[in-house]
């Protein structure tokens, strides 16, 4: 089985973001960037399938600025075999990314695509579903368990009421949820080895896709701040406040 995994370079999840003073976006200068955590889970799952001899080759793909190559190197150090970088400085939105990925997939013909369920920057939760739609493939979103068989795949999904199991015909798109696995840290020897693995760089023009954003961001603002309240000294005071001040019980 050939697996294609997608990764996105995002603001590290530990960074407390700041809105730009002119409300045009988020302050990104000198901010630590990392691989989107859900994409780490996607890479890890692909590597595990390779370690079980289910996957033969793992191709990792990203779109974005030149520095996204660092994110690809991380995926290669975790165990992906080769990488494709669609280099662009444009603002990337899910539909455009899905179209570019489709163009790559038409050429690469993977049996399975594994993606993070959402990126922690724009929180869209769309690209995997959109890609599956454009390809006419089945989708298994929010996966907490992935069990491939010869020409199909059983996945367990995290749904609102608990868990759901569905079967997908291959080829298919799967998006990862938190509890699918715990991603490994790349070892130093693997980081060194990853430097020699190939990264192919493409332009959107070479793929024949138009990445122009569809949504216009008018402004980005801070959310309304919630004011802290008071500390109460004991249970009796808490009950009194809830009954007589907040009137919620």
């Amino acid at each position: 089985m050939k697996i294609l995994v997608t990764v996105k370079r995002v603001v590290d999840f530990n960074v407390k973001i700041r809105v730009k003073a002119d409300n045009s976006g988020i302050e990104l200068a000198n901010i630590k960037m990392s691989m989107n955590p859900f994409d780490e889970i996607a890479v890890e799952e692909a590597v595990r399938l390779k370690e079980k001899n289910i996957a033969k080759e793992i191709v990792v793909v990203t779109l974005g600025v030149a520095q996204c190559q660092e994110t690809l190197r991380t995926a290669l150090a975790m165990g992906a075999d080769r990488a494709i970088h669609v280099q662009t400085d444009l603002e990337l939105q899910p539909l455009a990314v899905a179209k570019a990925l489709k163009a790559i997939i038409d050429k690469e013909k993977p049996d399975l695509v594994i993606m993070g369920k959402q990126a922690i920057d724009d929180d869209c939760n769309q690209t995997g579903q959109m890609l599956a739609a454009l390809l006419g493939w089945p989708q298994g979103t929010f996966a907490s368990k992935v069990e491939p068989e010869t020409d199909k795949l059983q996945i367990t999904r995290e749904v609102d009421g608990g868990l759901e199991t569905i079967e997908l015909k291959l080829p298919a798109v799967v998006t990862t949820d938190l509890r699918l696995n715990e991603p490994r840290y790349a070892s130093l020897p693997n980081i060194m080895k990853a430097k020699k693995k190939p990264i192919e760089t493409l332009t959107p023009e070479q793929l024949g896709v138009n990445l122009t954003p569809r949504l216009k961001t008018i402004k980005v603002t801070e959310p309304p701040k919630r004011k802290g309240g008071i500390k109460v000294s004991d249970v009796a005071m808490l009950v009194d406040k809830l009954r007589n001040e907040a009137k919620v019980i």
Partner: protein
Amino acid sequence: MPTLIVAEHDHKNLKPSTLHVVAAAKAVGQPTTILVAGFNCSEAVKAATSIVGIEKVLHADDAAYEHFLAENMAALVVKLAKEFSHVMTPATRIGKNFMPRVAALLDVAQISDVIAIESADTFQRPIYAGNAIATVQSKDAIKVITVRATVFDKAPATGGNATVTKIDGTGDSGLTKFIGQELSKSERPELTAARIIVSGGRALGSGENFKLLEALADKLNAAIGASRAAVDAGYVPNDYQVGQTGKIVAPDLYIAIGISGAIQHLAGMKDSKVIVAINKDPDAPIFQIADYGLVGDLFQIVPALTAAL
């Protein structure tokens, strides 16, 4: 052009999130049609006819919609969408699953998790786990929108008188097959619909200790939630999780017990009307947003609170 809402339901009853979306659609200010796609779902269709603000109900009844598989739902919605300028559904796991598929097939952007409708083409949505709010404008012919239900009021469930049109389904894609589900059974109110939520974190120490929370929740007729840390530690199932990647809730009263207040948890509950925090660490971030904070040992405080109610 009118607005189409895709109802979320369990074939018998509408989910409360559907009523919130109807209220959100009112802000677009157009006649509103609701699609009830299900299997043997005439009870849910009947419920939809009496929602205030709905003019028409489209009823698609087919085994293909029994489990709301994304491929089947999307094909149906795409077929209907051309008659509408807006297509809206709750940003629940079901809506998040099929709606981007609809948008891609229509070749339009999706606007996810909308929290405010400024005009027919301009919307607010949270980014970076709710640490920033983006105002976005869509020039696409059809606006495909998932709505964060909790921030909108509920449309009245009774008083309306919509007409029903039975429509043909688009059949089964044959791409995916439903195998089974393990749903948590509970007598308690649903997390996203509860007026009061009692939520526990890693400090509970075990699944067994969540019984303390159950006793308190019983007194308050509350739902039980949990932080991601408590779910990851295996104390409670995944569907208890409140937070950016779990459920987004906004009850009248949220009692956070042994929850430190990680950003991703706060993103899921900070719109609650009143927040109570019980934690032994006086510096826990949860106290910065709590209306009432009580510092101390939860294993003493929670039973005392239960007894005092």
